[in-house]
C-alpha cells in the first residue's frame, strides 16, 4: 500500500480507511492541498473535518508550561506512581493505543473505561443477559429488503451509512435487486439520505418516542406469539400501524433493525435494545431477521474489543489489586470522578476535539490531539497524533467483525498515543 505520487509530487492515496466514525469507510481518496490534506472522493462531513484539520505541533506541557517530551513523560509516570487509584479514560485511540493503555493501567493499578461506555453498555448489558441475532454491514447491504431504523439518528452519527448500506444499487443476489422498504421508527429522524433514491421503494414513518420503542417491539413480539392485546394505541402508535409493521417483518426475506446506542439516551435504554433483540430472535424462528447496532465512534469499539480479549471484560475494569476486577457500575469513570473515587485522570482523545475531558478538579494527564481543549489546565499535557492521519494503526469496525488498517498520510512529529503510553509505562 505504497502511496501513489500525484502530478505535483505530493502524496495521493486511494482506498483510505477513515477513523472518524464507527463505520470505518475505506474507500476514500485523499490528496494534498496546500500544506494539508484534502478528501477528494467519498468524503463526508466527519471525514472532511478529520482529515482536513490543519496540522499543529504544540509542545508538551507540565502545569501549562512547555517542557520536553521526556520531562512530560517523567512527570506523568510520577503522578501515576503516586496515585492511589488512577483512572484511564477517554480512550479515543486505535488498537495499539488500547493495548498500551491496558498495559499501563495494569502496571499502575488503575481503572480503564471509554468516554462513550454509557452508550456501549446499552448493548453490553444485553449481550451479558440475553444476547441477539445480528448482521454486519456487507451482509445487510446485499441481503436486506427491509430496514427498520429504531429511534436513532443514524445519518448524523454515520453520514454515509445510508449511501453505502441501504441505497446501494448493486446487490449480490440479483441483477435487478428488489426495492427496499425503510421504516423510521422514532421521532424527528433525518430521512434525507433515503429520499428520492432509486433503490428505495417505500419510506414508512412511525413517529414514536424513543422511550416507547420497546413497547412497540414487545407488543409485536407478543402478537407474533398469538397473544391478544386489547386496546387501541401501542406505544403511542395506532394499532393498525403496529400490525402493519409486524406483517412487514414477517413477510421480509431478510429484515434488519438498526439502532445506535448513543441515540438512545434515556434511562434503562438497554431494555429497549433487549426488546429489539428478543423480537428479532423470535422472528428468526420462522424467517430471517437480524439486528445491526451502530455507533461506536471515537474508537469505542476498538477499546471494548481489545479490553475484552486482553482482560476478559468490556471496559470498566480495575487493576488495582493486580487482578482484573470488573464492575460495570462501580468502574464507570464518570461516576468515579463525580464521587471522587479517583485521584488522577489520564484522558486520551486522538480523533476529534469533541472528546473533551470532563471538567473536574481531579488532576489530569491529557494525551490529546492538539485541538482537544480541556476546561482546566491539565497537570501534564502531551499532544498525540491521530491514527490514520499522523501514524498507522488498526481499528475495529462497529459490527465487531471487520477491522481495518489505518495509514500515515502526512509527515508529522506528533507521537502515537501507544508510543507515549509505552514510555510512561517504562518510566513507572
Amino acid at each position: 500500500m505504497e502511496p501513489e505520487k500525484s502530478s505535483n509530487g505530493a502524496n495521493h492515496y486511494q482506498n483510505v480507511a477513515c477513523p472518524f466514525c464507527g463505520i470505518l469507510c475505506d474507500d476514500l481518496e485523499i490528496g494534498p492541498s496546500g500544506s494539508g490534506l484534502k478528501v477528494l472522493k467519498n468524503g463526508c462531513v466527519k471525514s472532511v473535518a478529520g482529515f482536513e484539520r490543519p496540522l499543529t505541533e504544540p509542545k508538551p506541557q507540565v502545569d501549562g508550561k512547555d517542557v520536553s517530551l521526556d520531562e512530560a513523560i517523567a512527570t506523568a509516570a510520577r503522578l501515576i506512581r503516586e496515585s492511589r487509584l488512577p483512572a484511564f479514560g477517554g480512550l479515543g485511540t486505535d488498537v495499539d493505543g488500547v493495548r498500551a493503555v491496558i498495559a499501563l493501567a495494569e502496571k499502575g493499578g488503575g481503572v480503564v473505561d471509554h468516554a462513550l461506555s454509557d452508550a456501549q453498555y446499552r448493548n453490553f448489558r444485553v449481550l451479558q443477559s440475553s444476547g441477539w441475532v445480528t448482521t454486519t454491514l456487507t451482509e445487510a447491504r446485499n441481503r436486506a429488503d427491509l430496514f427498520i431504523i429504531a429511534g436513532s439518528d443514524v445519518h448524523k452519527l454515520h453520514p454515509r451509512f445510508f449511501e453505502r448500506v441501504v441505497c446501494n444499487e448493486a446487490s449480490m443476489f440479483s441483477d435487478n435487486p428488489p426495492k427496499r422498504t425503510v421504516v423510521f421508527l422514532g421521532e424527528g429522524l433525518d430521512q434525507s439520505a433515503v429520499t428520492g433514491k432509486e433503490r428505495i421503494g417505500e419510506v414508512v414513518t412511525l413517529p414514536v418516542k424513543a422511550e416507547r420503542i420497546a413497547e412497540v417491539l414487545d407488543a409485536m413480539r407478543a402478537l407474533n406469539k398469538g397473544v391478544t392485546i386489547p386496546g387501541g394505541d401501542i406505544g403511542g402508535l395506532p394499532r393498525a400501524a403496529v400490525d402493519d409493521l409486524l406483517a412487514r417483518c414477517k413477510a421480509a426475506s431478510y429484515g434488519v433493525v438498526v439502532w445506535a446506542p448513543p441515540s438512545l439516551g434515556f434511562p434503562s435504554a438497554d431494555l429497549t435494545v433487549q426488546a429489539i433483540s428478543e423480537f428479532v430472535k423470535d422472528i428468526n424462528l420462522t424467517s430471517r431477521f437480524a439486528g445491526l447496532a451502530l455507533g461506536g465512534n471515537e474508537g469505542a469499539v476498538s477499546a471494548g474489543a481489545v479490553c475484552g480479549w486482553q482482560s476478559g471484560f468490556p471496559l470498566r475494569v480495575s487493576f488495582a489489586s493486580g487482578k482484573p476486577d470488573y464492575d460495570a457500575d462501580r468502574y464507570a469513570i464518570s461516576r468515579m470522578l463525580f464521587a471522587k473515587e479517583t485521584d488522577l485522570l489520564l484522558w486520551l482523545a486522538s480523533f476529534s476535539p469533541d472528546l473533551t475531558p470532563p471538567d473536574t478538579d481531579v488532576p489530569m494527564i491529557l494525551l490529546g490531539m492538539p485541538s482537544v481543549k480541556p476546561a482546566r489546565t491539565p497537570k501534564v499535557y502531551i499532544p498525540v497524533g491521530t491514527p490514520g492521519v499522523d501514524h498507522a494503526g488498526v481499528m475495529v469496525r462497529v459490527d465487531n467483525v471487520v477491522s481495518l488498517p489505518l495509514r500515515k498520510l502526512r509527515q508529522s512529529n506528533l507521537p502515537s498515543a501507544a508510543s507515549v503510553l509505552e514510555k510512561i509505562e517504562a518510566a513507572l
Partner: protein
Amino acid sequence: MLIKLTGGKVYDPANGVDGEVRDIFIENGRIVSPEPTAKVDHEYALHGRVIMAGGIDPHSHIGGGKMTIARMMLPEDHIGNEVARTELTRAGVGHAVPSTMTTGYRYAEMGYTAAFEPAMLPANARQAHMEMADTSIIDKGAFVMLGSDDFFLRQLAGKADFSAIKDYIAWTMHAAQAIAVKVVNPGGISAFKFNQRKLDLNEKHTYYGVTPRDIIVTLARGLNELGVVHPLHIHGCNLGVPGGYETTLETIRGAEGLPIHLTHIQFHSYGTEGDKKFSSAAAQIAEAVNANKNVSCDVGQVMFGQTCTASGDSMRQFVNTRSADPKKWVVMDIECDAGCGVVPFKYRDKSFVNALQWAIGLELFLLVNDPWRLFLTTDHPNGGPFTWYPHLIRLLMDKNFRRDMMQKINQDALQYSTLGSLDREYSLYEIAIMTRAGPAKSLGLVDRGHLGVGAWADITVYDDNPDREAMFTTPELLFKNGELIVRNGKIVKVVNGGTHVARPNYDRGIERSLNRYFEDFHTVRMDNFRLSDDEIINGGRGSLIIQPTRARAA
C-alpha cells in the same frame, strides 16, 4: 550457548524413539549434535524424566471475534478465575474462555508450544491475528474458513474454471495469513441466510444450487492440487444431530479418496438407537476411519462442567440456542463471508445425552487404531476448555481410572456405548504422537513436533508420575526455541511466539475479479481486506513462520 539435557527418557515418534534414554543438546534455539569435545555451558540432569517435543494443539478456538464475543458475554466465567499480574506475566481471567495472554500462559504451563485457531473468517482475519498476537509464548496459526462465502459459491455455481477456484483458495490463504483451510457446515452457513434450516450432504443450496458434497470435493481437491500439506479441515453437515453419523460416513465415501481431516468427530458420531433415539455410532465411524487412510480426525472430547460453544456454524448453533446455559447467546450472519454462533453450555455427568457424548469421544479414541491420524482435542472450548487435556490423557492411559470415572456418570448412557468393553490403554509413545508428532506432520510444520537434530528446541520435560493427570498438568521444564520458559509449572520467561502460514502459488489475475467483486458488493476494499506481513510482524511483536507447500499441480 550449548545446553545439555542429560539422561531423560525420550519419546520422539517422528524419529521412532520410544522411551530410550538419550541426551539432547540445544544450541541457538535448535537441537544439535555437537562434537564430543564441545563445551557444555548448561546441563540439566533429567534422569528418570520423560522428554517429549512441545505439545501442539491442532484445533483450539483461541482467537477471533467469536471468542471475544464469548469473553465479553460471560463475566461469570471469569469471576473467581482471575490471574494477577506479576513482574513477568500480565493479568488475565477465565475458565472456558480465558483472556488472550492467560491462554498462552496456560498452554505453556501445560507443556504446549503451539495452538491452531481452526475457524478464522477471512473478514475477521485481522482481529483473529491481533488476538493471537496477544496470546503469549506459544506459536499459533489459523485455518481460514471457506465454503459459505459468496465469492466461492458464485464460482462454484457459475462453473468457474477450476484453476480460478484454486487461485481464489490460495489468494485467501495469503490474504488471511492462514496455514490451512477449513469448511464449516459446507454451504450451510450461507443457506441459513436464505432461511434454509438444514442442508444434508447431497441437498441443494436453495440459491446457488450446489451441494455440500460439491463444496467439500472442490475444496479438498483444490487444496490437494495446490500442494497445501494439511488436508481440507471439515466440520461436516449435521453437527450434533442424532443419526448424523450416516452423514459422516457418506462424507468419507464422498471424498473419493482425497485427503480430508474430519474435525471434532465426536459431535458427528451419533446414532438413533434406543428409547431416547440417541446412541453411539463411534464403532462405525472408527471402522471407517481405520479403513480409509486418506482420513484423519480430531475428537472434540466432551468434558463435564461449564463451557461455551463457539462455532462458525450459525445454522446448527441457532438450533442449539434452545440448550443455552446460561440462557443467553449470539448468532451472527457475517459479511457475505461466514457466520458464527456463541452459545454457553454446561455438560452434566448425570445427563443421559452429555454422558453419552463423553463416552462416544472416549470410544473414538480407543477404537481408532492409528494415532498418527487421530489428534487429542476438546475443540476448546466447545467440548470443554483445553486445560482438561491432562485429565483426558489419564482417561486414555489408565483404564482403572476410566472405569472409576464411568461409575460417576449417567449409567443408562453406558448401555448405548461400547466403552465399558474397551480395555485399551494409550502408551506415552502414542500420546506423544497424538499431541505432538501427528499434528506437526498433518499441518506440515517443518522442524517442529520432533526432537531430531535440526528441530527447533520446543521441548517438554515431565516427571514420570504414574498419575498421568498430575504428570501432564505440571511439566518440570518447558523450552521454547531453546529458551527455558517454564520450570515446575511456573513461567520463568515470556516470549512472543510466531505465526505459521502456508503460501501456495496463485495467479495474480484472480485479483481483477476479486477487486471488482469487493468494489461492487463489499464494504471493504480488496487492498484493505488483505493482511500484510508487516501487520503480523508489527514492529517485532510477532513473526512469520512460512511452511512449505508441495508444487502446485496445474
